[in-house]
């Protein structure tokens, strides 16, 4: 069974530029999560989708971050414009309505 796919794996941009990340969850997983993980810390939930609807985006900085999950399958997370403090690993995860969450390899973003 294929796992959660993410791309790109690494991205380096200048501050004020925009960037987009892509995630394809495990087939059949209705719930998709985007997390931000600062080095040395645990994952912080940015947004959670159930199918193509948003369940929780309370910690998403909506002035610069946006996310969508068209057709309830893959998802994109965008940052525009990026700030230095956005440097982090962006993790995508998916789950069924029960059981564990499965993570992708993450995208390491460096903002210069």
């Amino acid at each position, binding site marked *: 069974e294929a796992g959660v796919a993410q791309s790109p794996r690494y991205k380096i941009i200048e501050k004020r530029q925009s960037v987009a990340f892509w995630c394809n969850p495990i087939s059949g997983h209705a719930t998709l999560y985007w997390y931000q993980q600062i080095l040395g810390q645990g994952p912080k939930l940015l947004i959670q989708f159930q199918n193509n609807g948003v369940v929780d985006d309370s910690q998403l900085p909506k002035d610069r971050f946006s996310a969508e999950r068209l057709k309830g399958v893959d998802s994109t997370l965008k940052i525009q414009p990026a700030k230095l403090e956005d440097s982090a690993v962006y993790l995508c995860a998916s789950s069924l309505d029960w059981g564990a*969450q499965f*993570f992708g390899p993450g995208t390491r973003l460096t903002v210069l």
Partner: protein
Amino acid sequence: AQTVTQSQPEMSVQEAETVTLSCTYDTSESDYYLFWYKQPPSRQMILVIRQEAYKQQNATENRFSVNFQKAAKSFSLKISDSQLGDAAMYFCAYRPFPGGNQFYFGTGTSLTVIP
């Protein structure tokens, strides 16, 4: 509100020895899941072990086992015969069930394995 606490930011263990990582959680739910995830440096977060709260038997996966104390709201991870590859950040996580799609993570424990 559900919270997950890992009180040991760092732990170390000699290779081939046993180490226990602690986790406590706060919930008013009676049914839920608990998980331990492992995240090696610069690598993917992977599921180590899971426990359903309704099961009294502690989960075991090869060298990894848990001590689940529901009344005490404690969920510790025991790693036996520690190997160099066990060095990683370990995160404890909680998920309410049913109807709970939110996962709550602890702050992590960094495990060093000493050769």
